[in-house]
């Protein structure tokens, strides 16, 4: 688990609530169709063979997935890998999943708790999106942040200096492993 020290206290709490939330309230008919959708998404994801993204359900709960994305080439995030958690609501895909960074990510649109500010995960969500497109969107968000509405102001300010930013990313990324 590559987790930045400061975030460790929060992440387990967040994931455990995410895990428990969908199961008890699931209606049989609804969860059945969500199940089918998630299963076929998993199949599509495994067949697509996209490089740099992957996701798989947690052991006993298909409503809770763990995903990984790698930083794209020629960005300051090149060579880094990030773990994410995806918690699907019962009315998925009509409502977006809750996606969070589990690995600390120094990014203008990611806050210290791993919350992501991405329009397609909020008001621009469409039921035509799936795990694959979400992960690809987040991957491209890494290289093209939206500086105008930052969650991490420090990162937003530093973004203009790509060399310094790169050093900061490497420093924070290596910190928990060292």
């Amino acid at each position, binding site marked *: 688990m590559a987790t930045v020290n400061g975030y460790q206290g929060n992440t387990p709490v967040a994931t455990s609530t995410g895990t428990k939330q969908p199961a008890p309230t699931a209606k049989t008919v609804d969860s059945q169709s969500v199940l*089918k959708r998630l*299963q*076929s998404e998993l199949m*599509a994801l495994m067949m697509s063979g996209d490089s740099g993204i992957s996701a798989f359900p947690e052991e006993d709960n298909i409503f809770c997935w763990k995903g990984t994305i790698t930083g794209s080439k020629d960005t300051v995030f090149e060579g880094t890998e990030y773990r994410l958690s995806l918690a699907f609501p019962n009315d998925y895909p*009509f409502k977006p999943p809750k996606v969070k960074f589990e690995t600390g990510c120094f990014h203008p649109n990611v806050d210290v708790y791993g919350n992501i500010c991405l329009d397609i995960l909020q008001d621009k969500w*469409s*039921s*035509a999106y799936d795990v694959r497109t979400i992960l690809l969107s987040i991957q491209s968000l890494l290289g093209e942040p939206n500086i105008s509405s930052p969650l991490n102001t420090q990162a937003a300010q530093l973004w203009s200096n790509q060399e310094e930013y790169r050093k900061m990313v490497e420093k924070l990324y290596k910190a928990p492993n060292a």
Partner: protein
Amino acid sequence: MDSDSINNASSTSVHNGKDFSRKKRRSAKLKQCKLDARREQWLSQSVVKNKVCCKAGTNGGDSKRTPRGERDSSLENLEMRRRGEANGGGENGSVQHESDSESLPSNSPTSSLLLGGTGSGTSFTNSSSGSTSSGGCCSGSITEEEGDDGCLDDWEAVADALAADDDKQEMERNENYRENLCSGSTPEHEPNPQLGLNGARSDLRNSKPECQRTVQMATGTSRAWRVDDAFRPQTLPNLSKQRSFPATDRHFGQGGVSWVRSSAFSPPSSCPICCEDLDFTDSSFLPCLCGFRLCLFCHKRILEDDGRCPGCRKAYEHDPMEAEASIQGGSMTFRLARSCSMIARS
């Protein structure tokens, strides 16, 4: 739409296969009786006919040698086939279809032609058109010698396939009718470039309007018979191989490909939102101008929610809802027509 029509075609063929085997079992005794009767008839005439047979054989050899004669015979074949078509109403496709679904190459008219060579061209037409008439008694006897079961199975298959083809054509007619209703469905007729040759061909054939389709098939087969006499024995076995397992081939071969493809390019076989299979009504349901398709359940669900198309995020307009109603009407008439035809037949 094309995927849907494929489904329909495969389902009907499966149904036909079942039906056919049942009929076959039932009429096995009847067949045997007829066979015996005909053999007796033939034996009683054989003394006279043997001479004629020999003569015919030499004639056939002559015609084989001279190109003009061959042409004539092939033309005759064609003409006889045409007549058979006029009688049976597009039996060309149905004969192939039936024999393929049975997947017994020895029964198919194709292989009998190949085995018999050029001389027995007439015998083939007789056996396939199912009318062992008095005129073709000589060639008819040849077919009987070749394989009694094969000959009988052929005309039995023709009879069955005729009914099946009628059914299919009717379904397609209804489909066309519904397509006309749903005016915005033009892009779905585009042959998909990503499909293989087989897939593209069957797609084309399935998605084309009915009249074009029959014409296409008729010309295709007639050409095949002529060329196949001596030059290309490969094409027909390929054809039968291509269509020999309609259900499995289409589902796993083509279905797999279309599944990997994004649903945006071609009409999906399953709803992209709930991943349930699209039924007949769903697949002709085009709620948004952007072309994003989904099942009626998910559409209703979205209308209750924010009412925006998942494909383009624009709000659904009211016009497509009227289109939906008319489509539903179309499907109702379709169902009625089918049940009527079933009653009329049985």
